[in-house]
């Protein structure tokens, strides 16, 4: 025993003897102006762009306050303050840390709720990681990328069939407030269970109650096992909202570098642009259109460009981004919406009229596009989705036309009947994502006319029953998921099952 004790004491002595406090020259500055989350500092020569600045002040909780240098001017430095700026006084010392702003990343982040600096705010204790990533990073270049080919299954019928999203794609979700933009993103996250995806949900300037609800829902569906939530609340300073999406992206890039697939949701980028506008105006950068600064396009383009599909030589990982934009009264031609539309690889446009008619999710099939297209669909879905998209488009055209007169020929009437069923089939409840196999079965029975004699109001019931029957009796749903296509055997079995099922039903319309 005493040997051990001596050893410990000996070690302690030698360690202290060998300890050399290194002498470091530090660059300092003095706060000459502070307010609204912005500080102006004189001194700080040789400071870098977006370098972390440490203030010699402690906030109420006893933590040091940090800032980020954003404006390097002739005789002062403009700094945004991350956190509580009320404790900073004029004349305080600011020290340049010689580090670019970075956040902790790693497996430990999964299942946690963090702020935009990577600190846990879910009350489950500190997050201990050994790796840090800078929040700003140049996006991978052409050589490292490859084209998108694997699907992200959102589990939403209207999206997976008509606007398919691929791994590495950036698909904008756009629409007015309260139309279910977040709901689509959350459903997509819930549906990633068992699909080898990590998810990051970035809430920018959101109501904390809303985010608490989302976390609860995700936990309920077991989705927090692969999800990280980056949260800046509505009461957080604009500086934190401004860096939140970049932090979220840095967390996602850790998994990308490990060759994994990540789905990241930015909810929402309009608020992000607003907080950047606030910061820019306070830093006295010249305002441009709608008072946004000149580089507001670059603000989003550099963020979304970091979403990518890497080729095999670079690990083969991907980051799929679902940015959300909230429009004002359906105005998609405002500044920020047009910017983001032009950056992304397509958009899902949600329409108020559809929403209030009860077609939820209210995806407008005409205005929603995916520039990656069918490259990101499994073969089985490709086969049925093309037809569905056509039926939906024809229905839209005819429905407007059919309002004028009731004397329609048989062909048109048939198309209208079919179209009404397509619209009905696209209706889907929240938090009820559907496996791709089930989606294919629904679409298959519709385009092959097996639903034509099902009354429109019974479609939902019919679909549910059909899925249940097929799931219980056969392995078709799994087979489609694994093989990715409907071969002859599956098709035969499927037709038989559908016919069997229909023979048990009583509500079918008699053939005229």
């Amino acid at each position, binding site marked *: 025993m005493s040997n051990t004790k001596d050893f410990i004491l000996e070690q302690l002595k030698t360690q202290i003897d060998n300890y050399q*406090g290194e002498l*470091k*020259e*530090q660059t*300092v500055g003095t706060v000459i102006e502070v307010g609204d989350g912005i500080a102006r500092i004189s*001194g700080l020569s040789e400071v870098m762009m977006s370098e972390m600045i440490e203030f010699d002040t402690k906030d109420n909780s006893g933590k040091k306050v940090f800032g980020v240098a954003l404006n390097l001017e002739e005789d002062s430095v403009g700094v945004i303050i991350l956190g509580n700026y009320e404790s900073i006084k004029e004349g305080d010392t600011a*020290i340049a840390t010689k580090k670019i702003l970075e956040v902790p990343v790693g497996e430990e982040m999964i299942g946690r709720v963090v702020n935009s600096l990577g600190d846990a705010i879910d009350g489950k204790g500190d997050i201990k990681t050994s790796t840090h990533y800078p929040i700003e990073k140049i996006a991978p270049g052409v050589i490292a990328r490859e084209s998108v080919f694997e699907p992200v299954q959102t589990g939403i019928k209207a999206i997976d069939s008509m606007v398919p999203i691929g791994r590495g794609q950036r698909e904008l979700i756009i629409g007015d407030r309260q139309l279910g933009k977040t709901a689509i993103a959350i459903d997509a996250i819930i549906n990633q269970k068992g699909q080898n995806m990590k998810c990051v949900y970035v809430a920018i300037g959101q109501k904390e109650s809303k985010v608490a609800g989302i976390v609860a829902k995700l936990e309920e569906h077991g989705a927090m096992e692969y999800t990280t939530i980056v949260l800046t609340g509505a009461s957080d300073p604009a500086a934190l909202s401004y860096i939140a999406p970049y932090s979220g992206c840095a967390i996602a890039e850790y998994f990308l570098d490990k060759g994994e697939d990540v789905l990241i949701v930015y909810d929402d980028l309009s608020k992000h642009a607003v907080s950047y506008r606030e910061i820019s105006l306070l830093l006295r950068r010249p305002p441009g259109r709608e008072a946004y600064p000149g580089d507001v396009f670059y603000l989003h383009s550099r963020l979304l460009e970091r979403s990518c599909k890497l080729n095999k030589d670079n690990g083969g990982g991907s980051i799929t981004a679902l940015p959300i934009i909230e429009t004002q009264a359906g105005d998609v031609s405002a500044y920020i919406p047009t910017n983001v539309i032009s950056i992304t690889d397509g958009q899902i446009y949600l329409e108020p009229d559809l929403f209030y008619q009860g077609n939820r999710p209210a995806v407008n099939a005409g205005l929603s596009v995916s520039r990656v297209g069918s490259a990101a669909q499994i073969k089985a879905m490709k086969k049925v989705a093309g037809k569905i998209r056509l039926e939906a488009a024809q229905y839209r055209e005819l429905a407007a036309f059919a309002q004028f007169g009731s004397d329609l020929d048989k062909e048109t009437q048939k198309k209208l009947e079919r179209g009404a069923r397509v619209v009905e089939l696209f209706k889907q409840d929240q938090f009820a994502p559907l496996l791709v196999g089930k989606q294919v079965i629904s679409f298959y029975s519709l385009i092959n006319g097996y639903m034509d004699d099902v009354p429109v109001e019974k479609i939902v019931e019919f679909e549910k029953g059909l899925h249940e029957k097929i799931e219980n009796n056969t392995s078709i749903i799994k087979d489609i998921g694994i093989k990715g296509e409907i071969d002859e055997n599956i098709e035969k079995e499927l037709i038989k099952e559908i016919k069997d099922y229909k023979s048990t039903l009583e509500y079918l319309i008699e053939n005229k």
Partner: protein
Amino acid sequence: MKINSKQYALALYEIAKDKKKNEIELMIKNLVNVLIANNDISKVDEIMNEFDKVWNYKEGVVDTTVLSAKKLDEKTLELLNKYLLGKLEIKKVDIITDIDEKLLGGVILKYGDKILDGSIKTKLNNFKSRLKN
């Protein structure tokens, strides 16, 4: 065009260098007249501040604050002076000494916008955080 205080200070330095005292007196008088004419007399404090910086920069002088726990003797100050002259490659160091007992020992040098912290207090703090990790 508006003339800022830095430009006034630079101009003042340019005309005043290598001049005799009575000449300078006249120049200052003229400068004040110019300031009044330009409605810039309220900037005089700023100009004085800037002039201090300009003068130090052009003449190779650096103001240095030496913080220590106890009063330093002449020999130590001489050593510090030599160290700074060598390090910063300048002509002259203006040393202001100050005493802060909280440092326990060692010195903190402040020159320009740099800090060189060699105090016992900081060393102990660093040591503490290292032991913690």
